[in-house]
């Protein structure tokens, strides 16, 4: 699976997609291992990238390692293609790999994301690459790497439920709203990255390959296509996703994740889709009734 590196796409004297081939091979080996053991965090020798740690270096390295000149890339941050960091990462790959980019989810073969899963269902020929800040779901219960690795190895996940139990005892419901832990293929407990729990159900049996890169923490993990991903819960307090009382003010969707936009300093606010591509597609498809109501 070595990519042919010719003159195409090389700019500024950098190798295709910035990383040298040796590094890409190392990352691909980690990715293959991650796919073979769904949900398991594979340590890899994360490289220093020309953007800061914590700003998507893990996702960027994974994308760089899997990208071919035939790919079409989409980059989103918080669901939007036009947020500054998404723009910056997209430009990086335009410059170093010269691959075509798109904002349309359906047109992309590789989608790098921070904190969201696109609303549009992904296909088998697509790869979703997540940027991950803290890959260890047990980190805030147990700070030590040596201990958390042992807990994963032995499937000692009782502590995870202790936290959920505490939530219910205190609030009457599970109070985790994003980075909501999941069990992958009934084996490893995994952090889905700080996506809202609204997106968790999309991970289950997704036709697309899901790859997760944590650059600063030097971990890669994966959910292969059509793999069971279950959000942790209790039988009598099943997992549920957020719901909004009003539809998107721009496209009228009632089944998407909404961002709140503050309109003035007197409490005026409106809600609209965080996935800008899905929202625009819907707006173009037709102007919904809700939109007219909201606009007045």
């Amino acid at each position, binding site marked *: 699976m070595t990519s042919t590196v010719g003159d195409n796409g090389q700019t500024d004297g950098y190798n295709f997609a910035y990383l040298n081939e040796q590094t890409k091979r190392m990352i691909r080996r980690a990715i293959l291992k991650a796919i073979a053991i769904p949900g398991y965090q594979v340590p890899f020798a994360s490289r220093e990238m020309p953007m800061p740690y914590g700003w998507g270096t893990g996702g960027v390295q994974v994308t760089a390692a899997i990208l071919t000149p035939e790919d079409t890339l989409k980059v989103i941050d918080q669901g939007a293609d036009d947020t500054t960091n998404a723009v910056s990462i997209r430009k990086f790959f335009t410059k170093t790999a010269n691959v075509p980019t798109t904002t349309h989810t359906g047109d992309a073969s590789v989608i790098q994301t921070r904190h969201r899963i696109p609303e549009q269902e992904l296909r088998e020929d697509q790869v979703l690459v997540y940027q991950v800040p803290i890959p260890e779901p047990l980190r805030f219960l147990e700070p030590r790497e040596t201990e958390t690795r042992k807990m994963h190895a*032995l499937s000692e996940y009782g502590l995870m439920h*202790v936290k959920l*139990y*505490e939530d219910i005892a205190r609030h009457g419901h599970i109070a985790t709203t994003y980075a909501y832990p999941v069990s992958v293929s009934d084996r490893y407990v995994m952090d889905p990255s700080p996506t809202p729990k609204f997106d968790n159900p999309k991970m289950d049996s997704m036709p697309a390959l899901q790859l997760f890169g944590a650059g600063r923490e030097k971990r890669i993990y994966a959910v292969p296509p059509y793999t069971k991903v279950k959000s942790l819960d*209790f039988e009598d307090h099943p997992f549920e996703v957020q719901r909004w009382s009003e539809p998107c003010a721009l496209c009228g969707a009632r089944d998407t994740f909404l961002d709140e936009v503050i309109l003035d300093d007197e409490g005026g606010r409106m809600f609209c889709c965080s996935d800008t591509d899905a929202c625009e597609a819907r707006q173009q498809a037709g102007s919904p009734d809700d939109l007219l109501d909201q606009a007045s």
Partner: protein
Amino acid sequence: MTAPILSCREVTHYYGSQMACRNVSLDLYPGEVLGIVGESGSGKTTLLKILAGQIEPTDGTVSFAKKGGALTGLHEMSEAEIRLLARTDWAFVHQHPRDGLRMNVSAGANIGERLMAIGDRHYGNIRASAIHWLEQVEIDAERVDDLPRTFSGGMQQRLQIARNLVTSPRLVFMDEPTGGLDVSVQARLLDLIRGLVRTLGLSVLVVTHDLAVARLLSSRLIVMQGGNVVESGLTDQVLEDPQAPYSQLLVSSILQV
């Protein structure tokens, strides 16, 4: 005669060049409470930790009989097996409740943790078990959502016991369970432990420096001094007619008070 549930043979342990215990062999039978007494530094706590699989002895073997199984050496078990035993079939009651409790989660979560660790996923059932066990250790069910740090020392110790017993362990290790408590609180706790041991048919190893605790709880005694077992036998026998000079000293010093 039934087979022992726990057995050790010629267990010796060194910390560096310091001998902690030497050539200790013992058997614990199902439903029995065995007391290990001695002053601090006698090696009794080291021995307890070795028997509970927390320390690997320099020499000798420890074996445990799993449910319906024969005695198996701990050294033949994987770390995963021992850690599983430690949160299911075994219980360990620490001298200081802080070492055995999660101080930052509620009493209910403390008791429920072992259930969740073995796969219980029904909140209502877990909570009901937690309340049941709070009542068993004489803590008001109303306190189920309170943090352990709002509990008195005696209550914390009872909570620790409840947290341990919720998975119906067959073997309980206790390290000076009444150590840090007032005398009046001690008496109530000892009564409670004695009642639980009888009704649940627990097998218990209890380490104590307090002969009164040993007398009240255990049916057999082992006396340790300087890492060696100097005497062992039925509790009444050892306390009423101690043979080893050290046992005599220990008994007389207590009884004079």
